[in-house]
C-alpha cells in the first residue's frame, strides 16, 4: 500500500479484526520491520533515522495502557529521561491538566481505573513531544463512559497540540466523529481512503 499522511491531520484506520490496522501502526514507528517497502518521515527513509530517535518523534498509545510501576509522574518522566531530559514539575502538571488528571502526579498507577490509565498513557506519549502520535484502538478495552471520555480527550489534545494523529479503530461511528480522513483496510490491504463523507454512505457502512 502507498499512503501519504498529511501533517496535522487525524487519520483513522478502520477495518475488521485481522485487517492489519495494528500491524500498520507498528510499522510506522518501526516496532516491526517491513518485509518490503519503507516509510518516509518528512521525506526521509525512516531506516536512516536511529530507532530511538524515530520513536521519540513518532509516539504510540497502545490498546492496553501498560504503565510502569510507580507514580503517574514517574510514567510521564520515563520517555524524556530516555533522551536525557528531566521533565520539569510544571510540564507534568500541564500534561495532567490536558488529560484531566490535574493534581494527581504522585498517585500510584496501581490504583487507576482503565480510563484513567489510558489517559496517563496519552499524557506519557505527549511528554516526549512527538510529531506524530499513533493510537492503537485506545478505547477498545474501555467501558462506554470511559470510551467517550478518551475520545473527547483525543479530539481536544489533537486541537491543542497540532500533532499528526493516526488512530486504529474498528468502530466506524467513532472514526466519523474523530477523523479528518478515514482509511479503510481489509486483509492487510488498503481498500479506500478519504473524508468520512467520501468513505461512508448514508447507511453508515462503507461506500
Amino acid at each position, binding site marked *: 500500500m502507498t499512503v501519504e499522511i498529511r501533517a496535522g491531520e487525524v487519520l483513522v484506520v478502520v477495518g475488521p479484526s485481522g485487517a492489519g490496522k495494528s500491524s500498520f501502526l507498528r510499522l510506522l*514507528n*518501526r*516496532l*516491526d*520491520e517491513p518485509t518490503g517497502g519503507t516509510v518516509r518521515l518528512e521525506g526521509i527513509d525512516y*531506516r536512516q533515522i536511529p*530507532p*530511538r*530517535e524515530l*520513536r*521519540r518523534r513518532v*509516539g*504510540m498509545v*497502545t490498546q*492496553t495502557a*501498560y504503565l*510502569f510501576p510507580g507514580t503517574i509522574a514517574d510514567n510521564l518522566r*520515563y*520517555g524524556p529521561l*530516555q*533522551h536525557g531530559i528531566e521533565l520539569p514539575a510544571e510540564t507534568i502538571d500541564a500534561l495532567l491538566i490536558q488529560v484531566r488528571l490535574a493534581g494527581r502526579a504522585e498517585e500510584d498507577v496501581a490504583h487507576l481505573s482503565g480510563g484513567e490509565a489510558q489517559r496517563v498513557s496519552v499524557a*506519557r*506519549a505527549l511528554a*516526549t513531544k512527538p510529531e506524530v502520535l499513533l493510537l492503537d484502538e485506545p478505547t477498545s478495552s474501555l467501558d462506554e463512559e470511559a470510551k467517550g471520555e478518551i475520545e473527547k480527550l483525543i479530539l481536544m489534545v489533537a486541537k491543542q497540540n497540532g500533532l499528526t494523529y493516526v488512530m486504529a479503530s474498528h468502530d466506524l461511528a467513532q472514526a466519523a466523529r474523530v477523523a479528518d480522513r478515514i482509511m479503510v483496510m481489509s486483509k492487510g490491504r488498503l481498500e479506500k481512503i478519504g473524508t468520512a463523507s467520501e468513505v461512508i454512505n448514508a447507511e453508515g457502512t462503507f461506500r
Partner: protein
Amino acid sequence: MLKVLFANQLTLGCAQAAVATLLALAVMLLARQRKIHLERETIVALVRGIVQITAVGSILVLLLRGPAWTSVFLLAAMIVAAAAMSAGRSKGLPKSFQVSLYAIGAGAGSVIALMTCAGVIDTRVTSLVPIGSMLIANAMNTNSLVLNRFRSEVESHAGLIETGLALGADSRQTVAPYVQVSVQSSLIPAIDSLRSLGIVWIPGLMAGMLLSGASPIYAAVYQFVTISMIFSSSGLTALICSLLIRGSAFSPAEQLTLRPRPVAAPAVGRGA
C-alpha cells in the same frame, strides 16, 4: 542387604543402580497418577544418565594412565555438551547455544582455571575432572534457569517492554528488571546449597572423602571450598548469561523479537 548378596563391587554397583532406578520409576508413576506426565523424560534421563556416567567412568580409567593435560580436553568437551543441553532447554530463544557456551565456558572455565592455578583444585586427573564437572554441571543448571526465566519474563511483559521501546528507551534497559529477576532466581539453588551445607545435607564429595579415609575436618572444609566454587562459577555464569541474553531478545533495529509463543487451542471434545 545388597552387600550380602553381591560380593563383587561391579555387580553390587549394578544392583544398587537398579534399586535407585526402581525408586525413580516409582516416583514417576506417582506423578503419572496425578496426571503429571514425566514418563518419557524420566526414562530417557535415567538411560542417558547411566550410559553417560558409565562412559565417563570408563574414560577416567583410561585418563588415569594418561598425562594431566588430557583433562583439559575432557572438561572442554563437557562445557560444549553442557551448553548444548542448556540451549536445548531454551528452544525459541535466539542464539541460546552461543550464549550458553560463552556463559558456561567463561563462568565455570575461569573458576576451574583460577582455582587450579591457586592450588585449590589438585591438577591430578582424578581430582580435576570430577570437581571441574561439578562446577560445569551446576553452571549449566544455573544457565538453564536464567534462560528459561528470562524467556518467560520477557514473554509475559512483552507489552511493557514494547511500551518502553515506543517511548524511545534503550532495548537493554527495557529488559533490565527481568534480567535481574532471572539472575536472582537462578542463584537460589546455589545459595541454598551453601546455606544448608552440613545442616540439611552432606554432599557426595565429603562422603567420598570420608569413605576413602580423609580427616573429617579436612573433608568438611574441602566440601565448603567446593560449594563455594560452585556458587562462584554459577554466579559468574548467570552474570555472563544475563549480559549476553539481553541483546538476543532484540533485532538490530531495537525490535522485540522474543514474542509470546502462541498458546495451543484446547482440544474440542465430542461430548453430548
